[in-house]
């Protein structure tokens, strides 16, 4: 594989996803400047790996690299932000029970849906930022970047079942957070 081929592949495989890469990096790092650093770093990694790129979904491939790069970057620069996996597991299971109650407990009209419809961009953004990282990533990949479950599973490196439960929890947390503003 010559350098020219790699250059052409880089243009074809990486460049079209720069917007997605930047958006994901910005959500993970919470900063535009940091997102630019992460994307540059990720593109370098992608360029080095591109000779061995085996085909398949280029967007998922690129976003996987971006996400890993972003977490490596955060661990190096801001170690406190990354939550330990143990914490996350306890959050996921604690929320599972709560979610079931909230879904079965409501039979009336839908005040939350109305509040969400009225929530402004800043409020939505703040609520997403407040989510635990794994929930936030899953939600952003699905509801902002439009990936399907299989792609999200590839990017976040978990089974599709975990994507489903994280996505449902993430949405329920957002809904609860926004509904709580009104109380």
């Amino acid at each position: 594989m010559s350098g020219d081929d790699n250059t052409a592949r880089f243009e074809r495989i990486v460049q079209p996803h720069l917007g997605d890469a930047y958006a994901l990096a910005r959500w993970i790092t919470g900063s535009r400047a940091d997102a630019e650093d992460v994307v540059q770093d990720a593109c370098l990694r992608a360029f080095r790996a591109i000779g061995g790129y085996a085909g398949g979904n280029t967007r998922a491939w690129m976003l996987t690299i971006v996400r890993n790069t972003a977490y490596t970057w955060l661990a190096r620069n801001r170690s406190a932000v990354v939550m330990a996996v143990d914490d996350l597991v306890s959050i996921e299971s604690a929320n599972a029970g709560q979610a079931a109650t909230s879904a079965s407990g409501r039979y009336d009209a839908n005040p939350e849906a109305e509040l969400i419809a009225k929530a402004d961009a800043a409020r939505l953004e703040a609520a997403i930022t407040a989510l635990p990282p794994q929930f936030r990533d899953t939600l952003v990949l699905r509801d902002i970047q439009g990936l399907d479950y299989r792609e999200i599973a590839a990017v976040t490196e978990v089974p599709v079942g975990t994507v489903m439960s994280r996505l449902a929890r993430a949405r329920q947390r957002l809904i609860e957070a926004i509904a709580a503003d009104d109380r």
Partner: protein
Amino acid sequence: MTGPMTVDTHDNNDRTTLLVHAYVDGELDPANAIAIEQRIASEPALAAERARVEALRRALRERLPQEPAPAALREKVRRAAGLTRQRAQPTWMALAASLALAIFASSTGTWYAMQPPVGGSVPDAVIAGHLRALMAPQPADVASSDRHTVKPWFSGRIPLAPRVVDLVQDGFPLVGGRVDVVNRTPVPSLVYSRRQHLISLTAVPNASVGNRTSQTVQGYNMIAWTADGMTYWAVSDLNLQELEMFTRLFRAAPS
């Protein structure tokens, strides 16, 4: 946790909730989708969950569209990977990128000295996008005959969503949309069909071709026209008469 590690569900209620979310996301196979649809119809709690999820998705789509990458980032990435050999034609985005980069590069050295002259033309890039789409498993990244699905799909991906019109009555059903890259700028392409032929309609910002041109490139018919600051390129292996009919209909249709 006692259940399987892959799905953190604790009971049936919770599992049903996941299915409602997956249903809203269009991720269920037809049999499961019908089953959950029936349950939503008969169980108010599930209907409420569905309404909440849909409201949330709509709010996120409308109020938090994906922020595009800064123009300068694209060039920085190229520089970082040592890919600065061909130079795009100076569309406004490339100009903005160059300007930002000139400011950035003035402190770091000889970026302009490394720039050789101009690369490929717009028609070549448009044809390349069409050919790639024909070779791909799907000619469109978003496959839908509904313009109200196709148009919003673009808005998260490119700065300017294209005009999408419904021409199914005229025998040109919408197949979907995709993002092509012309002059290193992501641009929207709509895909329509006519019998077995596909038509790609690519909208390139601010690259005037005068009123209207048609040409044949590599055996494909192309018709270009400029409207609203965009140049539209229709490309297809369809005969020129029908392709012209398509462009007339597209231009005349209300958005």
